């Protein structure tokens, strides 16, 4: 179909993208930095809200003749639409937070024009990426997205760690896109088409199937941050400016997940080993992601490792779906993919919330080290509440959204064990234990974060703690979404169900997801919430009646406590981190006085990334050593260079002659 078909809502989507791009023009046309930024950000926000509205409209009223937006290379199928809505949903609070974050930088006389430009480019290219139906267009969007993220990341380029981390990121992004090129070229070779909609290569009949699958798993796995390929996340996320790191972790990683879903669409039905590979990689990512997170002191680095964990949880859902696909069981596919898709949405929401929260703290305290924080709850109560909501959600604790998606995945384990007897129940039981363990560690980690950052008394003097209304609006939107999805999951599950039904599973539709009695869950949660509220009211009344006693945190009956007496993050996590010491590359240094005279006692702990320090750095060290061996070739004299060219020509000619 080569005609332009524009339904009302898809036209609206194109307009919204154009409006978003308009903000770039606005910021460069207006002279005054502050006015330019305010105007541009408002335009961007308007464009994004329009975009979300159009996406929701398209979802509610699907176009009658398919969902092509423009020619054949821009298309909205339900899967793309779902990811598009996630991007827009998360982008809106991030843009609102920009008002507060960038104003802070404008006050410090720092130009934000280029950052806004790159941020807008990033947003637009990511939205185009999930609507792309043409492989080359997809790759172009992918490249623009990666590069815009890089250029935005070097916002504070005068810092050494920013230079190093962003270079690390850009190197990984380039390595990744080469793999993607190969992936799509093979697809083109096999089908003779560039269009996603015409890629149908059933795995069983295709000799290139395993190659394609492995390439996709590596390329999209790097982007998503699955465990052996996660190494760029903890380097890139801490150094990025807060709005960007929120968007990176919340959305850009999800493009990897999107890619995996697309790969499944191209190759389905996949054989069972694919499912096992994805499951193994994901479980590994989930467990060690959260374990690494527990050992971190840098709040953004910690959150980056939590992204690895959550991507692992999403991956477990995808793996289950693959197993369902291999055994031709739509029920398992629905549950597995449903859990994965819903967790994608949930993770985007609460991770953005947590990143924005930590960004506000970083901006005020000037440090990302949680050991130097403390007592923030006394400075900004709402920030602490919002952060707590995010923490509860990410740990998968019942009343909030993280629980819903993890619950679906847990259901998937039991469904798989039930449907496929044989050895499956044992494996599924192990997976249940694994995922439960991940949840426990996540809860431990966020107990640590909340306790050390927000509770207690400040470990370092807090000069001032400024928050403004934009911070609270963006945090509020995200926290509200966490609560809404947690308490009233039925419409969201229904949405996910329809996405799976129309894009991922062919044939018989199954209502297993929708039939899970979500209303009971809503009812139970509402009851719990009401009970908590009742207890709170009771507490207030009792306080009024009997008075309230206030004392120092962690007081424990001591007379003169100092902030140094508080429980620290390192000592909290030490017990757990000592278990996989070699994998976490966990060092600790304890200085204790065992003499009669008191010597200063110290405890330090530190964790490096295994892949980073034990695999990549030695590898590149080896490469450097190898290259140094050929240094004599780097002659400055042109005559030697020409001689080498001649030798190369002769060698090639000889080979050609012998070959002919």
């Amino acid at each position: 179909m080569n005609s332009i078909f524009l339904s009302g809502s898809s036209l609206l989507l194109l307009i919204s993208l154009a409006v978003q791009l308009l903000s770039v023009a606005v910021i460069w046309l207006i002279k005054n930095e502050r006015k330019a930024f305010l105007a541009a950000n408002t335009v961007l926000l308007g464009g994004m809200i329009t975009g979300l509205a159009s996406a929701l409209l398209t979802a509610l009223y699907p176009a009658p003749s398919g969902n092509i937006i423009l020619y054949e290379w821009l298309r909205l199928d339900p899967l793309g639409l779902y990811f598009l809505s996630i991007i827009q949903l998360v982008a809106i609070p991030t843009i609102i937070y920009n008002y507060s974050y960038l104003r802070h930088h404008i006050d410090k006389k720092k130009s934000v024009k280029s950052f806004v430009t790159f941020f807008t480019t990033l947003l637009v290219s990511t939205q185009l990426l999930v609507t792309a139906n043409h492989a080359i267009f997809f790759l172009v969007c992918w490249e623009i997205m990666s590069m815009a993220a890089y250029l935005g990341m070097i916002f504070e380029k005068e810092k050494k760690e920013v230079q190093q981390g962003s270079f690390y990121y850009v190197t990984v992004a380039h390595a990744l896109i080469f793999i993607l090129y190969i992936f799509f070229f093979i697809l083109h070779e096999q089908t003779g088409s560039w269009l996603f909609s015409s890629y149908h290569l059933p795995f069983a009949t295709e000799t290139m199937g395993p190659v394609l699958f492995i390439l996709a798993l590596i390329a999209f796995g790097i982007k998503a941050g699955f465990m052996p390929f996660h190494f760029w996340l903890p380097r890139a996320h801490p150094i990025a400016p807060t709005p960007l790191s929120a968007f990176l972790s919340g959305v850009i990683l999800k493009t990897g997940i999107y890619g995996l879903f697309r790969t499944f669409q191209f190759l389905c039905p996949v054989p069972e080993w694919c499912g096992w590979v994805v499951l193994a990689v994901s479980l590994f990512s989930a467990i060690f992601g959260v374990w690494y997170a527990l050992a971190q002191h840098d709040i953004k680095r910690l959150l980056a490792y939590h992204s690895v964990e959550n991507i692992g949880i999403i991956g477990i859902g995808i793996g289950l779906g693959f197993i369902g696909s291999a055994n031709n069981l739509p029920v398992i596919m629905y549950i597995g993919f449903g859990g994965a898709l819903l967790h994608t949405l949930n993770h985007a929401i609460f991770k953005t919330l947590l990143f924005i929260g930590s960004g506000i703290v970083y901006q005020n305290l000037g440090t990302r080290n949680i050991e130097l924080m403390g007592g923030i709850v006394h400075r900004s109560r709402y920030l602490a509440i919002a952060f707590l909501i995010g923490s509860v959600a990410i740990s998968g604790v019942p009343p909030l959204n993280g629980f819903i998606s993890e619950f679906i995945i847990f259901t998937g384990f039991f469904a798989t064990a039930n449907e496929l007897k044989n050895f499956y129940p044992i494996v599924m039981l192990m997976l249940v234990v694994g995922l439960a363990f991940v949840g426990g560690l996540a809860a431990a980690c966020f107990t640590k974060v909340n306790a050390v950052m927000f509770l207690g008394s400040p470990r370092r003097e807090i000069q001032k703690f400024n928050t403004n209304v934009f911070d609270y609006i963006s945090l509020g939107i995200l926290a509200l979404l966490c609560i809404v999805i947690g308490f009233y999951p039925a419409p969201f599950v229904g949405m996910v169900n329809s996405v799976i039904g129309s894009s991922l599973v062919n044939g018989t539709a199954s209502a297993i997801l929708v039939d899970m009695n979500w209303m009971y869950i809503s009812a139970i949660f509402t009851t719990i919430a009401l009970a908590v509220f009742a207890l709170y009211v009771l507490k207030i009344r009792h306080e009024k009646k009997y008075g309230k006693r206030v004392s120092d945190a962690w007081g424990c009956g001591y007379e003169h406590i100092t902030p140094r007496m508080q429980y620290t993050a390192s000592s909290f996590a030490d017990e757990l981190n000592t278990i996989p010491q070699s994998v976490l590359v966990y060092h600790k240094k304890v200085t204790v006085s065992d003499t009669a005279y008191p010597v200063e006692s110290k405890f330090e702990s530190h964790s490096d990334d295994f892949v980073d320090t034990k695999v990549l750095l030695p590898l590149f060290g080896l490469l450097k050593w190898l290259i140094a061996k050929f240094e004599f070739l780097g002659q400055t004299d042109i005559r030697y260079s020409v001689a080498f060219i001649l030798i190369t020509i002769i060698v090639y000619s000889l080979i050609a002659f012998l070959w002919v």
Partner: protein
Amino acid sequence: MENVLSILFCLSLFYLSVTSRVKAYVTVLRVQGIILTILLVIPFLSHFSVYGIIIPATMLIVKVIYIPRYINKVILDLDIKRRIEPTIQQMVFLALVIATIVIIFFASQLLSKSTPLNVIPFASGFSAIAIGIYIIMFRKKLIVHVCGFLVLENGIFLFGTSVAFELPMLIELGTLLDVFVVVFLMGIALNRISSTFEGFEVAHLGRLKD
């Protein structure tokens, strides 16, 4: 006709390998330019087209008139010594050139059995490429390197005409532009270097490394 011209071209290569005057190099470049122009014009004698004459015309202007004059001007302006300063003996160089040309002619003969090509122009073009590289390898002066590069470029042209299929016009024009720019840049570089260094030997350029 083509073969005769190609052999003439090849002979000019021999002259290049024995002469030791920079001036002679420029003359040979001019001669080679004329030979190539004639080679390009020949097909148009039978069926003339205005469009196709663009390349020979450009060739004539760039290779026969402009570049040699420019090189001569650079030589005069910068007062470069007239000797080429080889790094090996001229006789050894000649032996090397002869050996190379013989090998290339034999190889082309072999190759022509499997692929349709004109042996003599093909081998001459190939030889010019090789000898261009030799000139760059075994001469010290930068201006001679430019000449060597131009010989190489001429070889590529001859090579192109000898292969059965035709190169698109755009590519040929592109090559011409390429040569033009390179010579121009070399001239500028020489002018700059002359104000920094005494001689014009590439060995000195090593010091420009960052």
